[in-house]
């Protein structure tokens, strides 16, 4: 393992974020040949999710290891990649849970909702609530499907400049506007007096460094930190603006959609991946931001006096953003890639578990369930060696454990704690 450590040290900002179109380095490992076709996928996914994996230089070891040790190395490096994903996922969840527990803004229920969940849930009638949450889910999923198709079409017709511009514009809004809002709420919570010039300086620096790190070059850790912060911000907005029951149904529906979109031969995401693969291009992440911006610009024209509505526009982009970044769980020479959308949805699940009352057991249970789901997904990835959806297993475990812990374990543990019995 020593060689791998030194490899990591030598990875510096020059090589961190370069969108390289160079062909993959041929593997000298027999078992890694299978990952070559996915290498191109990775390059595409890289600028979005690359921050979150360590450059898999561990696999480019120059040491010529004998065959017998390969499998053991594969296992060890497989485990290492799993941990390399556990850490950012955990950090994102920690940020979201910490914010939810301290800043009450994100748990305050507001009457405004996203336009993608148009039906308002009535807390009094169970049947109607269920129906409306199903309808909201259908609306949201269809919006996502439509945007995916538009994106695939745009990509097929090579509108790259357009897409790049949108990408930059939308991440600009995220880095400046959302973080400004977040910072404002944190200051309100802790009653910190802040003047506008200082705030402007902070937000300006934060935003500009973020743009540079994400779109150009930057230290790897900083890029990873920015991607984690972005995912956390998105997840928080989602937690705030999705109605209660709709959120759970949407989580379930998104994982089913994820499964279909990635694995079905005619799935739009799969077609996107294959097209990019044919062209051997790394531009994929640009697409993630881009099509969202179209709608964002379009929506901004409508008359919306309510300032809160701005969130709705921004949210749209995030939907698409999550949508594309979420498919990619790829095991490649450069390590495992996990889309940012996955981070966002995992954090939404754990954040909602944390938002619900003061029970920490539920949050912990969901956290462990999601990590185990991720572990299983990566195990499947190592077995099947092709792009897999990252959401289904984790979200299923997360949902099962959330509902069962909330309804079954909580009363049990509360009774035990009241009597101070220990199991």
């Amino acid at each position: 393992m020593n060689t791998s450590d030194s490899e990591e040290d030598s990875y510096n900002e020059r090589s961190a974020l370069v969108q390289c179109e160079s062909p993959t380095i041929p593997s000298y490992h027999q078992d890694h040949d299978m990952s070559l076709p996915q290498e191109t996928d990775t390059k595409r996914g890289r600028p979005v999710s690359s921050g979150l994996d360590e450059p898999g230089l561990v696999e480019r070891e120059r040491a010529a290891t004998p065959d017998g040790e390969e499998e053991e190395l594969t296992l060890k490096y497989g485990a290492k990649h799993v941990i390399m994903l556990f850490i950012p996922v955990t950090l994102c969840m920690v940020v979201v849970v910490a914010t939810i527990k301290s800043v009450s803004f994100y748990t305050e229920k507001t009457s405004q909702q996203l336009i993608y969940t148009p039906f308002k849930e009535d807390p009094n009638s169970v049947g109607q609530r269920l129906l409306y949450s199903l309808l909201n889910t259908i609306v949201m999923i269809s919006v996502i499907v439509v945007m995916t198709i538009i994106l695939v079409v745009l990509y097929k017709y090579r509108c790259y400049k357009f897409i790049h511009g949108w990408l930059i514009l939308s991440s600009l809004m995220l880095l400046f506007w959302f973080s400004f809002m977040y910072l404002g709420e944190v200051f309100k919570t802790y009653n910190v007096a802040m003047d506008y010039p200082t705030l402007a300086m902070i937000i300006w620096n934060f935003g500009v460094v973020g743009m540079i790190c994400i779109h150009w070059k930057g230290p790897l850790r900083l890029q990873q930190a920015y991607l984690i912060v972005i995912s956390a911000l998105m997840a928080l907005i989602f937690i705030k603006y999705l109605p209660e029951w709709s959120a759970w149904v949407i989580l379930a529906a998104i994982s089913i959609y994820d499964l279909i979109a990635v694995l079905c031969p005619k799935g739009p995401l799969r077609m996107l991946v294959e097209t990019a693969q044919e062209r051997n291009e790394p531009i994929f992440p640009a697409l993630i931001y881009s099509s969202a911006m179209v709608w964002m610009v379009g929506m901004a024209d409508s008359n919306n006096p309510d300032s809160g509505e701005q969130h709705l526009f921004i949210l749209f982009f995030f939907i698409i953003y999550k949508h594309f970044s979420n498919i990619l769980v790829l095991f490649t020479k450069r390590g495992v890639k996990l889309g940012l959308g996955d981070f966002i949805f995992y954090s939404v699940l754990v954040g909602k578990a944390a938002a619900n009352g003061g029970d920490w057991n539920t949050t912990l249970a969901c956290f462990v369930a999601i990590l185990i789901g991720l572990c299983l997904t990566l195990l499947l990835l190592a077995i099947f060696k092709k792009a897999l959806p990252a959401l289904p297993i984790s979200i299923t475990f997360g949902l099962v454990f959330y509902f069962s812990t909330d309804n079954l374990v909580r009363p049990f543990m509360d009774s035990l704690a009241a009597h101070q019995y220990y199991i």
Partner: protein
Amino acid sequence: MTVAVFFGCTFIAFGPAVALFVFTIARDPLRVIFLIAGAFFWLVSLLLSSLVWFITVQISNKNSATQQTGLLIFGVVLSVLLQEAFRYGYYRLLKKANEGLLALSQEDTMPISIRQLAYVSGLGFGFMSGAFSVVNILSDSLGPGTVGIHGDSQHYFISSAFMTLAIILLHMFWGVVFFESCERQRWWGLGAVVISHLVVSCVSFVNPHYQGSLIPTYIILSVMAAWAYLCAGGSLRNLKLCLTCKDKDFLLANHRPR
């Protein structure tokens, strides 16, 4: 109260466990994964026992306090038995997985030995068990309030913290002894683990008479610690060598002068 109690109790309850994690497990990704898997298995066992308890409560008389307490005791015993069953299940799973990996890698040595797995899985069980027991209490200790205002014990928080510490370490020792007993086919060892777990849980029924519950728990903790140490290959001689810095293998491995 509040912050001081919170930090104090958190460090008491989780200090040694986190130290163990940081110094022995955090560096090796495989161990971390098996730790989390162990935590998951404990969680599933808790889920099942809560389910059974919940069902029994629903069909019982909710107004009778004695019946509820009786059901709770039943729940505790069931939970202990299920935890040990899941520990056994985890052992079988690990054995199978290890054998599979061994066959796959054509190596003589497994990437992680069964003893390490015993330690790691025990600690995983311990972490989850401790966390579920004490985290809600800790978060309550942060807020305002007076402990024991209705005549309950004033030492609620600190006794919970110490009990949790004992439980976490006990789970770790139980894991080591359990796996070793399974490896050597010493079924009395298994029985001893299950019985000591039951004793520790049942002794907590006398709470808030903490002297009645904490002292036996810590006695059992020391006994299990010694047993686990012996199972892991330790001996009095090793201990002496280690403490007097004369253990040559250890010194060589750490490049220290004698």
